[in-house]
């Protein structure tokens, strides 16, 4: 075991766990910039790229907190579709739009509360619980919307802030990422989440309220999913009952895992989730830009994700092997 006080810069970089996925992201950006010169260097394309990244990044923050505790929320994509409708109906009955937005997020949070209570007090595995709420919320959304798209409530100033202005969604995403990163690493909530994920019995023995923490993280994830749905609705000026669904949920979970959060629980990284969402966004945007057709799109996307993950894991192995005792 050899620990110098001045660890080499390279070693320090490799041990920073988000390093490997950041390398992957940078390589992809370089590739797409080379393949299609408009990838990054015009405002339109940069704005575009951020719109590919932001939604998954926000939801990933919540899913990461849950994955650290060994749980998952499969209903996030459906809550994403439901929240804007709640906002819409609230606004229709005359509630002022900002309050309607808050009500939409609260409605989403209540689904999270349901997820948390069923998982924790009834001891149903979260996979099953949230699978159930997935269908429940989807059916609820289809019912209240009669399957028909709806308008976003009026008021352009608020709409600009809540997603209509091209860069607003990525700013929201960065704010959420910053906040959750601080929570995870610098507050008792986050540290205890990690401890409870790494050693649930041990954490309970140390006096941590593991159940309360879990329920809180379910509420957080659902609220973030609802917020994302509302932001996207304002961005495209339409509330669509088919929106989101399982696609966005898988993207968020994938972003977290690609970024370095273990599916088995015990550790996680919010910054990694942002970078993971970045990788997925760069791939989707880049492949569309260079003209890949829809049929082959998913093949290439799937292969690219696999390649990114394999590269990521092997860099981690290299770092562990090289930098460990």
């Amino acid at each position: 075991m050899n620990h110098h006080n001045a660890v080499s810069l390279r070693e320090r970089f490799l041990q920073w766990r988000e390093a490997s996925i950041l390398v992957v992201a940078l390589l992809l950006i370089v590739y797409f910039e080379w393949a299609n010169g408009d990838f990054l260097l015009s405002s339109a394309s940069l704005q575009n790229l951020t719109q590919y990244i932001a939604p998954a990044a926000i939801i990933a923050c919540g899913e990461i907190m849950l994955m650290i505790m060994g749980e998952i929320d499969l209903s996030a994509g459906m809550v994403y579709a439901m929240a804007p409708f709640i906002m819409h109906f609230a606004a229709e009955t005359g509630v002022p739009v900002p309050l309607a937005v808050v009500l939409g997020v609260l409605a989403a949070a209540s689904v999270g509360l349901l997820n948390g209570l069923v998982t924790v007090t009834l001891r149903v595995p979260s996979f099953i619980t949230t699978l159930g709420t997935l269908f429940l919320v989807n059916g609820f959304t289809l019912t209240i919307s009669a399957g028909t798209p709806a308008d976003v409530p009026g008021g352009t100033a608020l709409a600009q802030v809540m997603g209509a202005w091209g860069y607003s969604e990525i700013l929201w995403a960065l704010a959420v990422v910053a906040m959750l990163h601080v929570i995870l690493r610098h507050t008792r909530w986050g540290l205890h989440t990690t401890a409870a994920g790494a050693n649930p019995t041990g954490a309970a023995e140390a006096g941590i309220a593991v159940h309360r923490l879990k329920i809180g993280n379910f509420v957080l994830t659902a609220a973030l999913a609802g917020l994302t749905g509302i932001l996207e609705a304002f961005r495209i000026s339409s509330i669509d009952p088919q929106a989101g669904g399982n696609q966005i949920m898988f993207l968020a979970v994938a972003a977290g895992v690609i970024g370095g959060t273990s599916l088995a629980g015990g550790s996680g990284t919010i910054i990694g989730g942002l970078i993971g969402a970045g990788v997925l966004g760069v791939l989707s945007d880049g492949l569309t830009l260079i003209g890949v057709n829809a049929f082959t799109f998913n093949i290439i996307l799937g292969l690219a994700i696999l390649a990114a993950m394999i590269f990521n894991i092997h860099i981690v192995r290299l770092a562990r092997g090289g930098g460990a005792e």
Partner: protein
Amino acid sequence: MAVPLRAEAIVKHFGAVTALNGVTVELRRGEILGILGDNGAGKSTLLKIFTGYQRATSGRLLIDGQETVLRSVDHARALGIECVYQDLALANSLSVYLNLFLNREIMWPGPLRLVNHGAMRHRARELLADIGVHIPSVDLPAERLSGGQRQAIAVARAVNSQARILLLDEPLAAMGAREAGLIIELIQRLKAKGDLSIAMIMHNYAQTLEIADRIVLMQRGRITYERETAATSVAELMEIVRREYRGQDTV
């Protein structure tokens, strides 16, 4: 002066199973008490009642002579009772200093309730130096430590919280001779610092007789034997245990 901890006629049922069948024992000031016994004898259950993790079905606990009902682990901790469980309650992915301060983090003042990493690191180094534990860096994740180092951290965490009564569940389990020796030295140093009364559940009779001042032997939910270690020996203890096996054979 009253003893720090005294249990009288403690009974604990888990449904149809009786784990403790009337245990009376006390922990005297400044002593190291060894609790011996086979698996299923009720040692861990007794410990969990002392720490407030479980409640006795009947019987009473006296802390410093005062009859007390321990409402929770936090309540027991507030009274100065700390425990180190077998699984050590360490979070593998968290660093040494974060584990040391788990659920007792040092905070920055102010409404944001942010934890003070710098202060915790500093205090962690001080604490480890104080009780003579050598860890290369307090930033190492707990999973990178050896078994003995992990045990030392868990004990250090308990000591950090101003414990007066320290309970250890199999502190030397799964440890090689050298590491066990280091932990034994640590426990002896802690005792020498004064005003700490230690009760340990142990399996290895030789090690127990080396550190403990007094031992009790538990068999099937009861204390069947109690002696100062100076007045007994490994051979005698083993004979008692053998008698129990033989007793079972003739049933």
